[in-house]
């Protein structure tokens, strides 16, 4: 193989590789950027916690870990459904993909309802945003996460509208799925850092 042919083949290989990303590249850029932003939030929280471990643990005592666990299972299940929907869309099965994306949205609504219930429980018990540093972080982190989830529901609604027309646009389903998995993954970390750390 000549040098120019070899370098041409490398260029083709490079671009072929880039084309293989599931969903839109712009969504991946957003998701990876969001990972970095949330990392900064987590590091700030963990440093504050390390400076006052016992104080944070005393405040953490008042969180309902059972609700956190239920919400995690709800979100993980939604992620499973939307990953399955991407498979169905690749097979050209728009009806199956539509049902699965709707189930994912249902999991999102259940998560949001449980989160609002949990917040109202904490507020009624007197634990508000200003109660202490731990609850400040709790409301900020879970609040930003909930905003992401609501945005995810809007993205999935766009996917549903497309699937309802009978178009199994696998690229669009993958894009919505990628965003939803990010919401799921960030919640897994929030559960560990806010509810479970000792």
């Amino acid at each position, binding site marked *: 193989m000549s040098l120019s042919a070899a370098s041409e083949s490398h260029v083709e290989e490079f671009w072929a590789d880039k084309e293989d990303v599931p969903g839109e590249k712009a969504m991946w850029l957003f998701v990876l950027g969001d990972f970095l932003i949330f990392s900064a939030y987590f*590091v700030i929280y*963990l*440093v504050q916690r390390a400076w006052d471990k016992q104080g944070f643990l005393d405040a953490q005592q008042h969180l309902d870990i059972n609700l956190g*666990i239920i919400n995690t299972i709800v979100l*993980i299940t939604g992620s499973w459904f939307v990953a399955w929907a991407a498979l169905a869309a690749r097979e050209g099965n728009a009806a199956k993909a539509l049902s699965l994306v709707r189930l994912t949205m249902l999991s999102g609504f259940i998560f949001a309802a449980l989160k609002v219930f949990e917040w109202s429980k904490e507020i009624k018990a007197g634990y508000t945003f200003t109660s202490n540093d731990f609850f400040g972080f709790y409301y900020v982190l879970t609040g930003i996460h909930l905003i992401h989830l609501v945005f995810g529901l809007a993205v999935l609604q766009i996917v549903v509208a497309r699937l309802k027309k009978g178009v199994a646009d696998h690229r669009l389903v993958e894009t919505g799925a990628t965003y939803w998995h990010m919401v799921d*993954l960030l919640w*897994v970390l929030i559960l560990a*850092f806010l509810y479970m750390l000792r």
Partner: protein
Amino acid sequence: METTSSKRLAMSWLALVILTLLGWLVSEPAGSPLMLNAKVTLLVVAAATLKCYIIMRDFMEVKPATTPKYIRLFCNIWLLALTGCALGIYFVL
């Protein structure tokens, strides 16, 4: 493009649920006040890291056959760095 099978997705979901429940069992002290516990923290962070890895690999399809190398590298380095930071901050500060 190689695709993930629905059976594989179901297994991943099951693994995520089991890891979540194990984390809950380890961290829930059944009615007693929460105590500082480095072992529990280590297990909780390890379980969360494994869960994130499963979500990225099987749900987001961050794996050799489906995702470019630069995204795989970014995701793996990000997850390792965050785990390292969490444990480092907990045990060093």
